[in-house]
C-alpha cells in the first residue's frame, strides 16, 4: 500500500474517532487495516532503512488513537500493547516532533499500572520520564500524587482526586482503582477496629446507600448486628505461636556442617 493511501486511511480514522459520536467498531476496523499497512512501512524500527520522519509520525499518531480507542472500548490488554509499541516512538526517535498526546498517554499508562497494583512497574515507568515534566505536567502529576496518597493511606485524597482528572480517559482507570481502595480500606478497618457502626462504615467506604454497605459487609464476612446497627470484625487475638522446630533443626544442621568444615 502506498503511503498516500495509508495517509488517507489514517485521516479517515482520526476523523471518525474525533467525531462527536464516534463509531468505535468502525474505528477498530480502521485500526486493524492501518496496522497491516504500517508494517509495510517503517512501523517498527528498521535497521536497513533510514527512518522516515513522515512515516514514523503517521505510525505514532495511529498508535496514539489506537491506545485511546482501547480505553474507550475498555480493553486493557490492547491498551498495554499500544503503549508498548509507542514507547519506541517516544524514547528512541528524538528526531520526531513531540506529540501533544504523549504525556497524557504516559499518565494513563501510569494509572493503568497503578490500578492493577503493579507498583514496581509503575516506578520503573516513572524513572523514564523527564524530571522537568515529572514535576510540572498535570497529566503526570495526577497519577504520581495518587500513588503517594495510596501508599500513605490518605484514601480521602484518592477519592477526591476523581474530580480533578486531567482528561476523561483517566476516569476509566480511577473507577477500577476505587474498587481496589474500598477493599484496602475494608482490610485496614478489620485490623484497626473491633466494631464499627454501619453508618460510619458507609462513610469510610464511600457508600451512600445502606444496601450497598450490607452487601459489602456480607462479601467480607463481617458479623452485622442488626439491633445495634454495628459491624463486628473477627479478632485473631488468640493465635497460637508454634515453635518453629523445622526451621531451627535446619539451621542447626547448617551450622554443624559448616563448623565441621572449619575444624
Amino acid at each position, binding site marked *: 500500500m502506498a503511503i498516500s493511501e495509508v495517509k488517507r486511511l489514517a485521516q479517515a480514522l482520526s476523523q471518525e474517532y474525533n467525531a462527536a459520536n464516534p463509531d468505535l467498531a468502525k474505528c477498530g476496523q480502521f485500526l486493524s487495516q492501518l496496522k497491516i499497512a504500517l508494517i509495510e512501512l517503517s512501523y517498527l524500527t528498521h535497521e536497513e532503512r533510514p527512518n522516515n520522519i513522515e512515516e514514523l509520525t503517521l505510525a505514532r499518531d495511529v498508535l496514539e488513537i489506537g491506545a485511546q480507542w482501547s480505553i474507550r472500548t475498555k480493553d486493557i490488554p490492547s491498551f498495554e500493547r499500544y503503549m508498548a509499541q509507542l514507547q519506541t516512538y517516544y524514547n528512541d526517535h528524538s528526531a520526531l516532533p513531540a506529540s501533544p498526546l504523549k504525556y497524557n498517554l504516559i499518565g494513563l499508562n501510569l494509572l493503568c499500572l497503578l490500578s492493577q497494583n503493579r507498583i514496581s512497574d509503575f516506578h*520503573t515507568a516513572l524513572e523514564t520520564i523527564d524530571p522537568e515534566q515529572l514535576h510540572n505536567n498535570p497529566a503526570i502529576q495526577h497519577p504520581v500524587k495518587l500513588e*503517594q496518597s495510596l*501508599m500513605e*493511606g490518605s484514601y480521602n485524597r484518592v477519592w477526591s482526586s476523581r474530580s480533578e482528572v486531567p482528561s476523561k480517559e483517566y476516569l476509566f482507570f480511577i473507577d477500577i482503582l476505587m474498587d481496589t481502595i474500598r477493599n484496602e480500606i475494608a482490610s*485496614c478497618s478489620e485490623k*484497626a*477496629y473491633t466494631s464499627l457502626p454501619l453508618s460510619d462504615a458507609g462513610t469510610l467506604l464511600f457508600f451512600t446507600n445502606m444496601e450497598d454497605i450490607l452487601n459489602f459487609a456480607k462479601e467480607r464476612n463481617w458479623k452485622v448486628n442488626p439491633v445495634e446497627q454495628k459491624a463486628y470484625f473477627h479478632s485473631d487475638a488468640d493465635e497460637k505461636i508454634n515453635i518453629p522446630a523445622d526451621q531451627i533443626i535446619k539451621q542447626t544442621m547448617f551450622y554443624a556442617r559448616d563448623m565441621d*568444615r572449619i575444624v
Partner: protein
Amino acid sequence: MSEAPRRSTRLNKNQEDDSKGKAKPVDQDIEMEDTAADATTEPAEKVLTPKELEALVVADIKQHFALFIKSAKTHEARFAVRALRAVSSLRKRLTSHILAQTIANCYVKGKLFSYDDTRKRLLGYLGSEAAATITAEHETTVTKSETPEVDVYLHLLVMIYLLDQNQLEKGMELSNITVKTVQELNRRSLDQLAAKVYFYYARFYELTGRLSEIRPTLLNAQRTATLRRDDDTQSTLINLLLRNYFHYNLYDQADKLVSKTTFPENATNNQLARYMYYLGRIKAIQLEYTESHQSLLQAVRKAPQNNVTAGFQQEANKLLIIVQLLMGEIPERSLFRQPVLRKALVPYFQITQAVRVGDLNKFQETLATHAATFNADKNYTLILRLRHNVIKTGIRMISLSYSRISLRDVCLKLHLDSEEDAEYIVAKSIRDGVIDATIDHEKGFMRSKENVDIYSTNEPQHAFHQRIGFCLKLHNDSVKAMRFPLKAVQLDAAEVEAARDQERTLVQEIAEADEDMDEDGEL
C-alpha cells in the same frame, strides 16, 4: 615532559613511583628480568631528569610487552593481568613522545606482520609533532617478538592517551578500529586486554554523548564473551551495558539484562562492586528494598576504600542511605562523618534527620532546598517515596509515647490534611504492622496496645541466624579465595624469600590498581 593537566596533582606520587623504578637495570634483557624485576628495586631519592624518566617509561612499556608475550605463550592470564594493573600508574606518565618512540620501535618495516599501516595510523593519532620526533636512531632498537597482544596493548595506550588529552573524536575513531581488531582476532590471551579496550571504547562514546549507538556492538560482544567463557570481558561488558541503560533511565531493559545474564563469579572485585551497585539501584526502583540493601552493602564493602574511588563510594552510600530509610532503618551517624563522604552526604543527612524525627514539614523543606542535588543524583523519585516513611515514623513515635491519643491530635502533630485522613493513615499503619493499636471510631481516638517482649518472640533467633550465616559465608569465601603455589613442596630458604618478595610486589600493585578504579568517575 608534559604531564596531562588533570594528572598534575598527582605529580609527587608519580615521582615516587618513578624513583622506585630507577634502580632497575634498564638495558638488561627484559625476558630475563621476569616477574621478580620490581622486587629487587629500592627507592632512590635522586630527582630524575625528564629524559631519564622517559627512558624509564619506555622500559616499563617494554617490560609489559614481555609480560603479554609470556602470558600468550604460557596461557597464564595472570601475567597479562599484572601488566594491565600497571597501566594506571603508567597512564600518568604517558606523553606523545614516549608513545611515538615505542610505536616506532615496534612496527618496523619488513617484519613478520605488515604493521606499516598500523604504525602510520597510530602515529597519525598522536599528531604530527610527535611523529616528527622520530629519528632514524629510534628505529634501530627493535623489540624482538611482536604478537597481536602487543599490537592491541599499544592501541590501548594510545586510546588512553587521547582520552587524557581530551581528543574525543580521534579516540572514538581509534577505539572503533581497535574493537574491530579484537573481535576479529579471537585469541584467549587477548581477553584481559579486550575488556579494557571495550571499557575505553564505551567511555569515548559516553563523553561524546552517543552511548545509545554502541548498544548493539556491546550486546554482540557480550554474547561472544559469554560463549567463550571470557570472564573479564563478560563482566566489563555487562557493567558497560547496565551503565548504558542507566544513562537513559531504561531500568526496564537493565532489569531484563540482569535477569537474562549471569555475572561471572571470577570477575574482579572492582567489576563486582560496580555490578552490585547497578543491581542495588534496579532493585531499589522496583521496591525490593531488602535485596537492594544487600547488593549495595556488598558494593560499598567490595569497593576499595581510598580517596580515588571517592566518587563511587559517595554514589553507593547515597543510595544505600535512601534504601535503608525506605526499609525503615536509620543509617548510622558515623557514616556521615567519614571524611570522604561528609560533604557529599550533607543533603542526605538532613533527609535522614527529618525521617528520624518524623517531621513532615522539615522533610518537605529539605526536599525543596536540595531538589537540584537529588535530581542530579537521580535519586529524587526514590526520596519522594520516603514521604510515607516519615509519616509512619511519626505515627510510631506517637504510638510509643501515648497510650491514648485523639485522632485530631495525631492529625495536628503530623501536619495532615484532615482528621479523616489521619484515621485512614492510622488504620493502614495498624494493618501494615507499623504500630500495634486499635482505633475507637465513635470517640475518635487511637489506643496503643501493650508492647510485647521481643525476647519472647522468634526475633532474636532470627537475628542471630543472619549474623552466623554471614560469618560462615565469609569464612567459606576466604577459603575459596586462597591461592597456593603449584609446587608447594620443599622450597628452600632462598626461594621462600623470593616468593615473599614477589607477593609483596603483587600486593603493592593490587593496591595501586585499586586506587585507579574510579579514575574516570565511572559511576
